[in-house]
């Protein structure tokens, strides 16, 4: 019944928009997300958050005029060589602001194109510091890798009691390599030992890397890799019967990963932006929307479990709307100028940008997989002074 009410509410919100769409001016928001490739699954979940927010709030009042918000999608294919065309596609569509991307490498690869066109971009879950460092057009609503690396290193050292950590990253993936580096710095500062390895893109045989970890006597296996690789690592770890816990970053927060760990004896621990249940209103609305739309449900991996990346997409959309309102125009340069002043309290907490354009975040949620049900369980909320 509750779901039905939520659905009706969404519909009543959406209906006037459809009726008015005819003679309403349009403001375009670019969605720069991977829909294919290694990060495709994550990119789709992040896009879902944006889409849901767009269904919920399809219009925005800018300078006294009500605009219809149109989402323009560009698939960056999870790869840095396809990113330029995708970014250029959004630029040529004259979007006012860009949301995305999932994955830091593609965000950096597209950055220069947005900069040249004077279009601001709001990073949703790209956590590498280099995305916003040294520029004025890239903003971000999530926490950063140095923070995340410290959180995970503290957890591994103090809670899991690990003294030797084995880290695995994909060659040439800025997110993986960056996070491993920050984890290593923090873990070694605590007095632990870190051994790190890399695997080539499209690798599917992880058995030898898992063996490496055992051989080094690792007490924790840190693999902050994309969903595609992490599911394979979990499956192969399970059949090798590894005993060390597997630790991951925010990319692993996906029902796809949880499913891979279901029915195994693996201990999987990750950190993330949002814990399901923290905002029941959002959870309920989002779930009923997912369940009412078959395509959306399929893009979410087949069930209605909420990924933190969807929440970031949702919050990012509202931050973009706030910026548009504050700018009072759809001109992208004005939106860029307005963004640093935006303060917005979203589902994931308060979003306020510092001088780099990064949202100030001080806490991360640590979660683990319930091996029986394949669901994420809340473990703790870790605070680290940034």
């Amino acid at each position, binding site marked *: 019944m509750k779901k039905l009410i939520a659905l009706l509410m969404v519909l009543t919100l959406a209906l006037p928009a459809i009726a008015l769409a005819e003679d309403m001016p349009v403001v375009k928001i670019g969605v720069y997300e991977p*829909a*294919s490739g290694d990060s495709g699954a994550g990119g789709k979940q992040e896009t879902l958050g944006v889409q849901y927010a767009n269904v919920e709030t399809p219009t925005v009042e800018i300078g006294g005029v009500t605009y219809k918000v149109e989402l323009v*999608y560009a*698939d960056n294919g999870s*790869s*840095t*060589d396809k990113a*330029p*065309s995708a970014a*250029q*596609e959004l*630029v*040529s569509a*004259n979007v006012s602001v860009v949301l995305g991307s999932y994955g830091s*490498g593609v965000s*950096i*690869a597209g*950055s*220069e*194109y947005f900069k*040249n*066109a004077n279009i601001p971009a709001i990073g949703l879950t790209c956590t590498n510091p*280099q995305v916003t*460092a*040294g520029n004025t057009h890239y903003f971000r609503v999530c926490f950063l890798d140095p923070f995340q690396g410290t959180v995970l290193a503290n957890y591994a050292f103090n809670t899991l009691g690990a003294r030797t950590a084995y880290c695995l990253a994909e*060659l*040439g*993936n*800025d997110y993986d*390599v*960056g996070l491993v*580096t920050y984890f290593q710095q923090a873990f070694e500062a605590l007095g632990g030992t870190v051994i790190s390895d*890399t695997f*080539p*893109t499209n690798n599917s045989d992880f058995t030898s890397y898992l063996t490496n970890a055992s051989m080094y006597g690792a007490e924790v296996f840190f693999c902050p890799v994309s969903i595609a690789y992490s599911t394979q690592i979990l499956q192969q770890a399970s059949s090798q019967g590894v005993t060390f816990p597997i630790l991951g970053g925010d990319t692993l927060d996906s029902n796809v990963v949880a499913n891979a760990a279901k029915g195994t004896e693996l201990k999987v621990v990750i950190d993330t932006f949002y814990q399901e249940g923290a905002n029941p209103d959002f959870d309920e609305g989002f779930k009923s929307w997912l369940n009412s739309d078959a395509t959306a449900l399929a893009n979410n991996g087949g069930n209605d479990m909420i990924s933190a990346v969807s929440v970031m997409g949702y919050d990012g959309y509202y931050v973009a709307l706030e910026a548009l309102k504050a700018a009072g125009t759809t001109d992208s340069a004005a939106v860029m100028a307005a963004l640093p002043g935006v303060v917005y309290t979203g589902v994931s907490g308060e979003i306020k940008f510092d001088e780099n354009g990064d949202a100030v975040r001080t806490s991360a949620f640590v979660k683990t997989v319930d091996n029986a049900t394949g669901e994420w369980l809340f473990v703790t909320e870790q605070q680290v002074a940034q």
Partner: protein
Amino acid sequence: MTKKTTRRPSRAAILSFIIILAIYVLVFVAEQVLPATSMLFTVLKKGATYALVAVSMNLLNGFTGIFSLGQAGFMLIGAYVYAMFTIPVADRASVYQYFNGGIIQFTLPWFLAMILAGLVAALFAWLIGLPVLRLKSDYLAIATLGFAEIIRAVFQWKELGPVTNGSNMLRLFPNFNSFNITDADGHVVVYLSTIVPFLIAGICIGLIVLLLHSGYGRAFRAIHDDEIAAEAMGINLAHHKRMAFCISSFFAGVGGAMLAMYQTTVQAKSFTTAMTYEILLIVVIGGVGSITGSVCGSFLFVACSEWWLRFLDNEQFIGSFQVPLLRNGFRLVVFSIIIMIVVLFFRRGLFGTTELPDLFRHGRKESALK
């Protein structure tokens, strides 16, 4: 272009020259008039880059008959050398963030870096050529392909990080937009970001055309037609093959540097075999053995994949009727089918072995180059 056949430039050569000049003027004017965000300029920039690389591959595969699949590897070298030597010193700390700013602490002007990019690629080609060029046809193809993969792994190795930045991205080096002339406020006064890549590619391709009309070029073609006969005629096979391989790699290196400028970032990960295949398909579409074909093929290929066929990737409605099949990836399916049709039924490609001036010579289609 055709000074070997007639002393005075022929009518065909003059006409060709006028057409090329007109294209350059048109590009320059279009850039000043049309909005800079137009997809047209993306296509032109990337097209010019691919044109150079395709011509360099054609020099090897089409004219000399050395079937090499190492193009991506040489482009990678070019792109890296260019990027490594042009990142401003002030930005190195942030680019080489895991390697304390790297060990290269100076910058070269962009054109020097570009020439160096070509030279280093040629040097690698010379080294690789020593063993590999002894091999025949498909063995050579697979060996060069293997070398490209090895080069990629070497550049990604973390122990070389202070030089190559390991497997991480290189960025913040001057790109095509750096050529635009801006006033004090940062507003662009004269747009040069498309015409400069056109000029670079044009000069390089011009050099290749001159080479092909020299004694070397005739020797290359002789090797292509019949290796054993060419050797019997006194052509030093090893020497000429090595020359062709190094020259082709030089221009592939310059093309790689241009690709770096186009992409604004460089990462070894993206220079895969798939990139080589793409360039090979451009050469085939244009016509193996035609420079004009490779150039036109590149622009056509890039325009289709980046611009004209993009609509196939999105759901389209005619009225309320949803066009079936259209969704992400359909563009590439259509593309592959077109390519297969060309490969199977139009084996000569767009131009066969015809060049631009030949189009104005009635009835003597293959005179200039045959």
